[in-house]
């Protein structure tokens, strides 16, 4: 396939609509316009994709620190309270002999957000350097990052459920902590970062060959 020149829609002056998948012929010199079918904004390539994605990745890395340092909930049991961060909550689960659940929480709350950020950094650096390495695999990486997005909200929802359900006054109660808010912000930032990245940039060099 390498010997055949594969035309991109852009090389033919056509912009693909990301919402309804219609092709739009843009006037000469324009880089964006409105889709003729669904009226969404269409671009040859997302505007400032790399810069916006980098900014959001860095912001989410910064918020990652308070999200893991602040307690996401405080468990009160017979008058004594212990504050749990995400990681200490996982340790608590292991101590309660619930290793499988601890594993789910560890993957969803710690591994997933970090690998999402790492994956995006790899994509951004390779695109910045005009890398020709494995475009198919990098596209798959992008799809994984995009798919994983929402799953890191898991712990925020767990805290919301636990705070309402576990409420027996003095005997036991759970108080949600500030960490949950920081964590939610971090997840949303990574979702926007993945959204800002335009996977078509991975393929642009191949088309020019």
């Amino acid at each position: 396939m390498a010997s055949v020149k594969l035309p991109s829609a852009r090389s033919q002056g056509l912009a693909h609509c990301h919402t309804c998948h219609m092709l739009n012929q843009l006037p000469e010199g324009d880089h964006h316009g409105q889709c003729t079918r669904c009226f969404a904004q269409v671009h040859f390539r997302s505007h400032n994709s790399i810069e916006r994605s980098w900014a959001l990745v860095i912001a989410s890395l910064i918020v990652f620190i308070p999200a893991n340092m602040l307690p996401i909930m405080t468990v009160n049991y017979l008058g004594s309270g212990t504050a749990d961060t995400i990681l200490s909550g996982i340790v608590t689960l292991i101590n309660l002999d619930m290793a499988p659940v601890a594993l789910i929480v560890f993957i969803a709350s710690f591994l997933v957000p970090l690998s999402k950020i790492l994956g995006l950094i790899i994509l951004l650096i390779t695109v910045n350097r005009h890398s020709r390495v494995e475009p198919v695999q990098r596209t798959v990486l992008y799809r994984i990052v995009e798919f994983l997005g929402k799953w890191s909200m898991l712990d925020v929802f767990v805290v919301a459920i636990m705070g309402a359900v576990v409420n027996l006054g003095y005997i036991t109660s759970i108080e949600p902590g500030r960490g949950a808010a920081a964590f939610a912000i971090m997840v949303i930032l990574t979702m926007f970062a993945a959204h800002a990245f335009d996977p078509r940039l991975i393929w642009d060099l191949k088309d020019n060959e």
Partner: protein
Amino acid sequence: MGKLLGPETREQLELQQLIACSDCDLLLERKDLAEGERASCPRCNNTLDERKKDTSNRTLAVAFAGLISFIPATTQPLLGLQAVGLTNQASLIECIVSIYNSQLYLVSVLVTLFCIVIPLARLLIVCYLMILVKRNKQSLLGLRLYRYFHEWEEWGMLEVFMLGMVVALYKILGLASAIYGVGLISFASLLISATLVTQFLDEQYVWEKLSGQR
């Protein structure tokens, strides 16, 4: 698989006979697909188009089922716990109120958006759209709503909340004995319906119907 274009064929084809891959921007010739057929990008294997069977009836049925499950799923108790003769249960709405009372206003707004507002809006929109499609109506409002339906997709988080309940259940079992509420079953049914909507919905067909291209 999508059909590759030769260097000279581009000029001979109309805009509507072409399709581009959303992930790698490869330009291809659009094929008319038979029911159940799927076209994928020959370069990056992305799904380009898929014809689905009886899409408007099936989608409408499951979307309606989802709307019915919606009320008990949000208002009935999901989980509860029991210890030394005391019990406490909470519904989805009570969860949101409780987190609001803990002064985590942002989190309460986000849970409301991701688990109630967006899933509900998307189910209502898809019901309305399927009625338009069944009646062969073109609609500008329909096109706009359908655009929102797609743009909000990743912000609907019913499946994540479901997993959250499973994790919470295990955590509760570590403290006391757990109670399973009616809301839990309703929520599962809501989640299944919402998932089936995306399974049964023929995206491209609905765009073409609403814009009068088909």
